[in-house]
């Protein structure tokens, strides 16, 4: 935590330096946009090369966690530099507006990612089950097969198809694929409530032997619920980048085009 204050202090100093510089230029009736724009370009360039750094783990280019701190602080710095450069929250002109939308999109998706990365790991740890994202479909398949085995055994051993019928009509829906994704993303408890309700409605129709099998189904459902939770949260942890990175790439491309246009038609 101490380390981030160093980055923040440097970012504030950098911003103040650019701000004072632009004020000086404005006072002497020069274009301050070249300075603020140049600084913004530099910061966005630094932000973008974090992705490149990730692909070169074998080069001694500073540890990734330091890059991450730099990336986070530089992201906020870029926002303030953008406002300094544009001088408004929402500029005029179609090109500038598209660029602004992309820039805000990148920033907001970045902030969202940061929030998710701070909150979700703790939520995942709390449920006391760890899964590898890529193995989740296989794990869910195994649980479903196990549940169906229990149902078949129950029918064979007790001669009653009540539990099988309930599984076919209701519980099977839950075991088929990840459920309650949206609710899980917001940390909701709907899955838990659903399982308790759907299992308890059946209890009065079962004898002791069948209740034993229902208990087994309940345990499997609880495990599946935890895996679903992992699925929802890990999907978010991975997929927010699918918004952030393309937005960032588009900003970079449009920014370079913006620079070329300025160079050709303005200077």
């Amino acid at each position: 935590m101490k380390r981030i204050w160093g980055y923040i202090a440097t970012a504030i100093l950098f911003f103040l330096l650019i701000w004072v510089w632009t004020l000086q230029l404005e006072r002497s009736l020069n274009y301050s946009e070249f300075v603020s724009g140049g600084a913004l370009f530099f910061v966005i360039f630094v932000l973008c090369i974090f992705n490149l750094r990730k692909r070169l783990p074998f080069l001694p280019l500073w540890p990734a966690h330091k890059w991450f701190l730099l990336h986070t602080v530089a992201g906020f710095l870029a926002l303030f530099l953008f406002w300094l450069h544009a001088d408004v929250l929402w500029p005029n002109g179609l090109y500038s507006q598209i660029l602004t939308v992309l820039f805000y999109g990148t920033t907001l998706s970045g902030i969202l990612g940061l929030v998710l990365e701070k909150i979700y790991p703790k939520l995942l740890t709390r449920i006391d089950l760890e899964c590898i994202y890529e193995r989740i479909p296989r794990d869910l398949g195994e649980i479903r097969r196990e549940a169906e085995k229990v149902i078949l055994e129950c029918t064979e051993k007790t001669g009653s198809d009540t539990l099988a019928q309930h599984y076919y009509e209701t519980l099977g829906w839950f075991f088929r694929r990840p459920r309650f994704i949206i609710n899980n993303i917001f940390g909701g408890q709907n899955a838990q409530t659903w399982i308790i309700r759907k299992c308890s409605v059946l209890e009065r129709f079962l004898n002791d032997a069948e209740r034993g099998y229902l208990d087994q189904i309940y345990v499997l459902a609880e495990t599946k619920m935890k895996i679903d939770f992992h699925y929802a949260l890990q999907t978010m942890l991975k997929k927010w980048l699918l918004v952030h990175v393309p937005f960032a790439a588009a900003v970079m491309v449009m920014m370079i085009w913006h620079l070329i246009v300025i160079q050709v038609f303005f200077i």
Partner: protein
Amino acid sequence: MTITTQSRPQRWDQPFGSEMTDADVERLLGVPEIQAIEADKFPSGISLKGILRNDVRIMRYKVGDIVIREGDYGNSAFLVLNGSLRVVLAPGLPGEMLGRRKIKKKNIWQALKQLWNQKKNPEFRDIQNYNNKSGVRESAVLGSSHVFLQDVPAVLDSNKTAVLEGGALFGELAALGRTPRTASIFAGKDSELLEIRWQGLREIRKYDEGWRRLIDQRYRQNALKAHLGATSIFSHLDENDLQEVADKTVFETYGTFDWHLSYKQLQGQERVDGKKDEPEICLQGAYPDGLLMVRAGFARISVERGNGRQTITYLGAGEYYGADEIYRAWKGEPDVALKVTISALGYVEFLRVPSKIIEKHLFPYWESGRPGGTRVVTAEPEQRKGTPDRKAENGQMSGRMQDYFDQTFSEGALQEWAVQERFVNGTQAMLINLDKCVRCDDCVRACASTHDGNPRFIRHGKTFQNLMVANACMHCADPVCMIGCPTGAIHRSLTGGMVIINDDTCIGCETCANSCPYSNIRMVSINDENGKNILDPQNHKPIIKATKCDLCADQITGPACAFACPHEALKRVDFRDVTRSGESIGGY
């Protein structure tokens, strides 16, 4: 109801040498060194003939074949039947000659070259390299392959050697003491050796006075005195006093040498029981009759609490217990008893220094107040080999024993878990803080991009609260994976102390992978440039190699996994620091 039955497993179900015949046993009984053993002293269940039939094997070596390598961990001793061997004296043979991997850090350019040299298909191997460099003499039995020296006359010219002729016994100290071999030995002529596995050696030592005297005498002469002299509590003694301590010290072993095999089985069945599977060395409340020093392995220190036992700490190689109690008794305190129970974690080898000796040679020194003469409860362990950059500390442990007694159940829970899971063995365990880990797998990708496109660990493992010990090689203090490697391909690097595998000399026998109690070594099939398996021309089965984390020994960045973690969630840690420092490590 069907009942599954199986005859009870017996000690000799798996003989050491499958080709041993009755004729071989008869022949061995005629060898003078074996003839001298008093066979009638052996119990009928463990007869000398039985040992010779099941615990030994006859090995043949051609000129230049390496029998044992300096630094290797072995589980057997050798008796020269005929032929002649050469012991390479200090400074010894270079690592590459012994079939070891030469670690050379990449420079910036070589590191950068990995970017375009990376093969599209994982586990690519250029088989030309094996043909040129390996120096492995293959055998039909995988475990009997040898590494051989390619130019014996040149080795003899450039190294000082001693000769071992028929009747010489060697390797017994490393086999019984679970310590690294101290010299390399190769065949000077075609030779025939009797290899005795540690179980057989232990029985012979137990029941035959002559062999016991020989082994113990050699241990006292060659190893014990030097070992005692290197400890912090006896380093002040002169030669004569050290000799007296060595003469009176008793050598004890507890647990089973190959604990890792049964532990792995029990773990699979989730049947590991701290109390049942750990032989007790001394009990809380017993009379302290000597200082217990750990020579190899680990021991659990626990105290009775409630209806169970709480692990308060553990002892590793170089640490000792009991001095405090003996000191208090020496100072006249009445009814002094041991405050803890000590039990063996798997296998542990103790040196018991009698109270009288401690009172004579240690306490007066403590009382004198001379430098280093402070009274300590438990000494700082010797520097762990697998811990690069660890500061050699002198004096007391970071926490006093009383602190361990005072810890609450919650404070001691991590230690309890680490001891139970044997993670205390790890000097470079991969510890992931799950509260910080965003499951991005950057660590896995970084590992893959530095290791033939295939990661050398799995980001999955046992968890305790928010901590996970991932399935990555922990570079153990007691590396049981190294026991039994026929070519010495898996070895401890002399620079850095990490356990690494030489891919060139690995023959894919799986001994190391089966031995690793933590399942951190993986066998992989190797591929050609097109991603197709390289096949053995004889049976058309894929050639497999053992792979594991090598701590990115040749990368300038150090372990790529930790270097690539954007949230500082992954660290390589010595479990001693995690469980004993009492401080949080980087927000853990």
